[in-house]
């Protein structure tokens, strides 16, 4: 379990975009795994099975939030500050701040995507899963996985471009 807990926490964090209830969700993943183990026939890798459970738990969380109509807490809330820990120590402050802002924008754009696009992006980029593994986890054809990946990235890129354009216009508006 200790081998997989970092993966489960990391994936859940990116998928749900919030640190709220993260422990409870991770706990739910492992309890579901435990309950499902007797019926696990070894046809898939255990990690694939675990990803499937993790995605299912994240989907339930999205549904719950939609029901509760609660706004999500940012992944980079005050407690975490993980973007700061990722910074390269040699960079100057301005570059670091820019990079941090960019990562926050990326996280925001990620949460704007549909559930399946977000899941595919997280599994492919963060978890370094292959198309085949993602297709197995999500029960989707490989072509569909590719489509979601490209579409998701394009949406994010367009969102970031639009955001940068807005930010460039904003100072002009103030000066006017």
């Amino acid at each position, binding site marked *: *379990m200790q081998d997989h807990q970092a993966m489960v926490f990391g994936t859940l*964090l990116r998928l749900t975009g919030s640190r709220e209830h993260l422990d409870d969700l991770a*706990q739910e993943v492992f309890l579901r795994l435990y309950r499902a183990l007797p019926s696990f026939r070894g046809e898939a890798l255990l990690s694939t099975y675990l990803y499937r459970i993790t995605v299912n738990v994240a989907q339930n969380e999205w549904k719950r939030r939609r029901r509760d109509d609660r706004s999500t807490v940012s992944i980079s809330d005050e407690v975490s500050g993980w973007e700061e820990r990722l910074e390269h120590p040699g960079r100057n402050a301005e570059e670091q701040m820019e990079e941090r802002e960019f990562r926050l924008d990326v996280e925001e754009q990620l949460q704007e995507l549909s559930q399946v696009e977000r899941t595919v992006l997280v599994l492919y*980029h963060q978890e370094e899963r292959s198309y085949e593994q993602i297709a197995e986890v999500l029960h989707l054809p490989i072509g569909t996985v590719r489509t979601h990946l490209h579409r998701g990235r394009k949406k994010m890129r367009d969102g970031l471009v639009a955001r940068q354009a807005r930010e460039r216009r904003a100072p002009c508006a103030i000066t006017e």
Partner: protein
Amino acid sequence: MRDHGMNPVEAALAKLDERLVRSLEARPVVQVPEGFAARVAGQVPMRRPVLLTPTHYGRNAMAVCMVVLAVAMLALALRSWELTPLGLALEWFVCAQFVALAVWLCSWRRELQ
């Protein structure tokens, strides 16, 4: 250079793509709470051992059948001088059944041991 031959807009988009992928590939650092594994292990429901009470219905039925067959053999043996060929055949048949049951009972007891 990748930017070679690209117009400035394309070059900027390519750079943006690179940054985007780099950000997506960066794993968020998560602090797994102390004692998380123990907490989960505590939540796992204990599996109750399955209690199997042996019933021995088969063995009892076998014993009853052997008694019945023994009585039948005894009854047939007492009247053996009156027996027709059909009666003799019946006696052999009952005897064979008794032996078969005795062999089965012996092999079953050996398996149990």
